[in-house]
């Protein structure tokens, strides 16, 4: 009862989901060092900067997917929203619209997809896998359609070189305090949503829905509104990633963000977010996205071929969850099977 006298380390470890998150961090360090031993360039300052920048998009996607996963749902439309926001922003800027307005419109359209997802899943009770499979096709279709089924020209052709540079620097090429802006952007978003999930009423409601939606409803949780909120958060993060990819390429690519929804699942799950809902913390997602990016970067840096890269990634996803299940087995009074 006298929880105040507990030793602070023990207290941190007692936070639900912290164990899995720390495991992922340990795994991250091991993987990173292993790659570095094979190719020391992995340890170079520039590579670390690149790593931080590249992992930012997986972190954002991971946050998006984690929010949805914790409620026990899934968002398959994330990758398509990334593509859609990149294409919409780029098309508008290529047409000469100011970046800020273009960003707002891209955001708005992602929010529309998010609202649709939220209503289909929260209100109409469609299985989230199917509902968001549908919007995944729709959003990707829109990404194709906005510029007439072709990638856009360089945004500089529309807004001029200077504005284009500003936009691109803001989201991708520029640095602040020696680290790329992309990373700061992702970290700010991370801190905000970390706080929302762990310290606010909405966060509690999200966990409650993921654990037992009926009990949550009878406790006065607005399930529909909360579900919609998670899909909106997913949409916002996806939109940001779309803008990052748009800034990176300086143009809109229709296939941008392909498969990102799966990377988001992987980042979350490696970090201990349960796809069954109710458990997981964003610190885990942070570790998971770093693991994912380090794998991608490291395999690339050591010159591994595509085939073996995929095999390694697949094995790590399975092993991460297997470990988690084995370690936690017996918890939640799950019946053991002989």
């Amino acid at each position: 009862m006298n929880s105040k006298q507990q030793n602070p380390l023990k207290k941190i470890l007692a936070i639900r989901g912290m164990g899995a998150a720390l495991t992922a961090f340990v795994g991250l360090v091991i993987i990173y060092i292993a790659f570095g031993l094979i190719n020391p360039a992995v340890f170079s300052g520039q590579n670390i900067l690149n790593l931080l920048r590249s992992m930012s998009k997986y972190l954002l996607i991971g946050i998006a997917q984690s929010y949805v996963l914790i409620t026990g749902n899934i968002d398959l439309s994330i990758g398509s929203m990334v593509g859609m926001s990149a294409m919409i922003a780029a098309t508008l800027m290529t047409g000469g619209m100011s970046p800020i307005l273009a960003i707002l419109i891209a955001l708005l359209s992602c929010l529309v997809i998010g609202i649709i997802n939220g209503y289909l899943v929260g209100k109409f009770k469609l299985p989230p896998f199917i509902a968001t499979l549908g919007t995944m096709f729709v959003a990707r279709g829109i990404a194709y359609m906005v510029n007439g089924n072709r990638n856009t020209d360089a945004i500089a052709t529309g807004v001029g070189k200077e504005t284009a540079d500003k936009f691109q620097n803001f989201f991708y090429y520029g640095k602040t305090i020696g680290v790329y802006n992309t990373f700061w952007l992702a970290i700010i978003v991370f801190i905000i949503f970390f706080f929302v999930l762990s310290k606010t009423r909405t966060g509690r409601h999200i966990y409650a829905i993921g654990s037992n939606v009926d009990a949550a409803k009878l406790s006065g949780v607005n399930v529909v509104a909360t579900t919609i909120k998670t899909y909106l958060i997913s949409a916002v993060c996806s939109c940001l990633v779309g803008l990052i990819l748009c800034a990176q390429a300086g143009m809109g690519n229709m296939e941008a963000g392909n498969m990102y929804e799966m990377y988001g699942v992987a980042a979350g799950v490696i970090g201990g977010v349960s796809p069954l809902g109710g458990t997981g913390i964003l610190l885990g997602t942070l570790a998971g996205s770093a693991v994912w990016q380090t794998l991608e970067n490291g395999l690339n840096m050591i010159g591994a071929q595509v085939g073996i890269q995929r095999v390694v990634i697949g094995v790590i996803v399975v092993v991460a969850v297997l470990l988690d299940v084995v370690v936690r087995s017996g918890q939640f009074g799950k019946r053991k099977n002989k």
Partner: protein
Amino acid sequence: MNEVIVSMNNISKTFPGVKALDNVHFELHSGEVMALLGENGAGKSTLMKILSGVYTRDGGTMEIFGKSYDDLTPKQAQEAGVAIIHQELNMCKHLSVAENMFLGREMIGKGVLDNRKMRQEAKKVLNELKININPDQTVGDLPVSKQQMVEIAKALSIHARILIMDEPTSALTAREIEDLFRIIRDLKAQGCGIVYISHRLEELAQIVDRVTIMRDGQYITDGNFKDMTMDQIITNMVGREIKEKFPRVTCTKGKKVFEVKNLNAGRMVRDINFSLYEGEIVGFAGLMGAGRTETTRAIFGVDPKESGEIYLDGQKIEIHNPMDAIKNGVVLAPEDRKKDGLCTKLSIRQNLALPNLDVICNKLGVIRKPKEDELCEEAVRNLRIKTPNVEIDSGNLSGGNQQKVVVGKWLARNSRVVIFDEPTRGIDVGAKVEIYNLMNDLKKQGIAVMFVSSEMPEVMGIADRIIVMCDGRITGELMANEATQNQILTMATAFEKKKNVG
């Protein structure tokens, strides 16, 4: 007759963090009904799951019909003649009655499933039990009590010689319970051994021959039922004496707090009218399926209302969803705690805080930790929830303690009306008294209490006024001090004639 057919010795079983069974000893004879009694979490279900092959034991020996068994699968247990009706319903809702009854031992003819034969066989068993259910009906479409009967029929269709019933009556109507007891007597006469687990101690006299009592995972005693008094049994179960099974406090009836007028919501809630007053507990009696749960859900805004008005302290209020109800100070502790009451994957803290976040959080919706701590500590203290700390998964608590958390969720706020739907279902005598005391506290504070229960003695023992429902309608109202079981039963079975046609 009367030889030992099950003999379990020094059985131990540990779950992570819990020693569920500690050197337990259990014996069953042919041709007897053995009541296995104990508080929540005493280990009754665990012991029987070991006997029926669901769990493996950590230590001890087990003989069935003189043959000793090491590890046992559910299938092997069946083959050894053991059938079990589990505490929780275990039906495949998408499958038909016949399909469920023969699941795992389907009949095969000409290499393919012989559905016709299984249907006929199912029909035969159901007829023997006088259960009027079409074997082709999808189980998910049946009311819970009928599902429970199918479960019983399924166990019987195995023609087992050892039948374990883990709280079979907790979801049955009075008539169905009568049928069940008749069947139990028949089986007993045929020489079957029956293990009967129940928290409804008043049932025992009708069928039980011997009792085995457990407490905290340990064997306490056994003996002939006739040779024990109810007080002895209870003392052995709880480990202390319980003075009053139904502690009643008297208050003066105050002003009207809550009124429901002409409420209609679906087939099971027809034209409901009643009022609740300060200083009284109003019991809602009736058979299973009388529509009491639906009534509470409609009031609380979980299910949509077709029509009707609700008044609180004379003001008309609108309740479209639980949020509206809670805002107005009307709260519900639901009947099915696993399904509706608890987020089992979350901690006790999170569960207790969930409906009170509006109070705990500041204007920006950020949780104020000290306030939350205070609320949790108070709930644990007031309700005497047995737990090392509030960070434990609520799903790991015993049934009674889970129920206390469900109730505790609502006691931290200033409510005007508290609705309890079967708050004592499946919890032991000791915990029951604690829940009664809680209701009494609320009553003393002038909070209106609506108390739904299917157990006649407790309604009569605790409530000041009793409203009886049948088939979705209120069929009568009685003052508790002048009510008799018979009066209540008559009202509870006052079906309209036209109902029986369809």
